[in-house]
């Protein structure tokens, strides 16, 4: 088993995402479209955000926060972030419900590694199954058997996945997570190409310009709609 280096890949672009991130959710479609447009294969990798360690933690019951250690400024930013991600998700035809808790997305994220390794051509199907179900609150991503169901639903052989996400896949995942901060990576989506590390899908115009050969003037940041 070859461990990954956070900033190195044979692919021209590394994309870091997390199933539980609303901003990664709305980045999936435009990033897949770019991949298709450029006729490239990006290196998609999980970044399992450890949200409580840097943004405060919160649990909700019946739609209300029952326990929280976030400041009011943090809450304002979080509420805006969800509203913003929701309106862009709706433009993409998706429903994005508020999250009920801070999830451990590692199993579903290790699923990305599984699909990348075993069934690369089904990666888009994996995203378009797991992400929308999760954000409609119809998928428990902490239940490995539900993630297996998703793999089966898209025709990806799930035999061995349960063990994989506890052993080889877990090691690959954890080893990658341990490198991220020291590599300058802290959030999702993050795009890594040619020494550039850019957080946010607003950089897709620049990513495209760069990967397509840097023709003309470099573009400013923008959310593609």
């Amino acid at each position, binding site marked *: 088993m070859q461990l990954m280096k956070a900033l190195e890949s044979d692919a021209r672009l590394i994309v870091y995402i997390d199933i539980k991130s609303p901003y990664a959710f709305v980045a999936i479609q435009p990033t897949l479209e770019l991949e298709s447009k450029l006729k490239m294969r990006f290196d998609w990798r999980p970044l399992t955000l450890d949200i409580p*360690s840097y943004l405060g933690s919160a649990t909700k019951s019946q739609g209300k926060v029952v326990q929280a250690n976030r400041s009011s400024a943090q809450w304002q930013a979080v509420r805006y972030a969800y509203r913003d991600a929701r309106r862009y998700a709706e433009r993409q035809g998706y429903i994005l419900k508020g999250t009920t808790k801070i999830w451990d997305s590692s199993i579903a994220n290790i699923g990305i590694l599984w699909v990348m390794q075993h069934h690369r051509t089904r990666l888009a199907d994996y995203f378009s199954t797991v992400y929308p179900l999760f954000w409609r609150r119809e998928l428990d991503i902490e239940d490995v058997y539900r993630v297996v169901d998703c793999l089966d639903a898209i025709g990806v052989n799930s035999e061995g996945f349960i063990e994989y996400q506890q052993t080889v896949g877990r090691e690959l995942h954890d080893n990658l997570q341990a490198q991220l901060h020291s590599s300058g990576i*802290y959030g999702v989506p993050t795009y890594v190409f040619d020494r550039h590390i850019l957080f*946010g899908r607003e950089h897709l115009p620049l990513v495209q310009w760069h990967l397509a050969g840097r023709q003309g003037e470099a*573009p400013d940041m923008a959310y593609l709609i």
Partner: protein
Amino acid sequence: MLLKIFLDFKSPAAYLAIKPTVALIEEYHPEVQWLAVRSTQKKQPKPAANAGKGSIHRYVRGLARMQTHLLYAGIQGIEMKFPDSDSCTDLALAALGYTAKSDLGSLPFIHAAFSAHWSQQADLNDLEVVLGILSDRGYRPKESDLKAALEELPDAERVAHEAGVFEAPSYLIADQMFLGREHLPWIKLILASG
């Protein structure tokens, strides 16, 4: 159609938003109000050797943001030097309110104040500095005008917060609030439809 734009001169994101925002305004000619909001810009200290994940995360994030701002400043062809210490821009924000009532409008002052802060590290909370910027651009404020504007700043902040604005640059249009110039394509769609 009314477009409210909330700025803070110490916000690098707001500085980088000016060029593309003005281009959009020149294309669609909306009614524009330039308004003040105090943004949070704090240098994150380098974490100690035994620092927790939160400190490391905030430091890595702060460094990455600065590098990204510098990347796009290069793309836009504008000078950008980050100050060595945290800044206060209250007087310049108050002056923004003063310029809104001027026949010259706010834009000449906005360009000059951003340039002064980001190219020359000017202290935008210094009375002499801000009066100098205003005079150089053709405004004729008295010291008392700025002091009065400074007294109105808390009200301006309250208006911003009541509108849901908490950072710069923020855009209010058609009952929607957008934080950041990355939303300009959507704002453009709204302007084009109106």
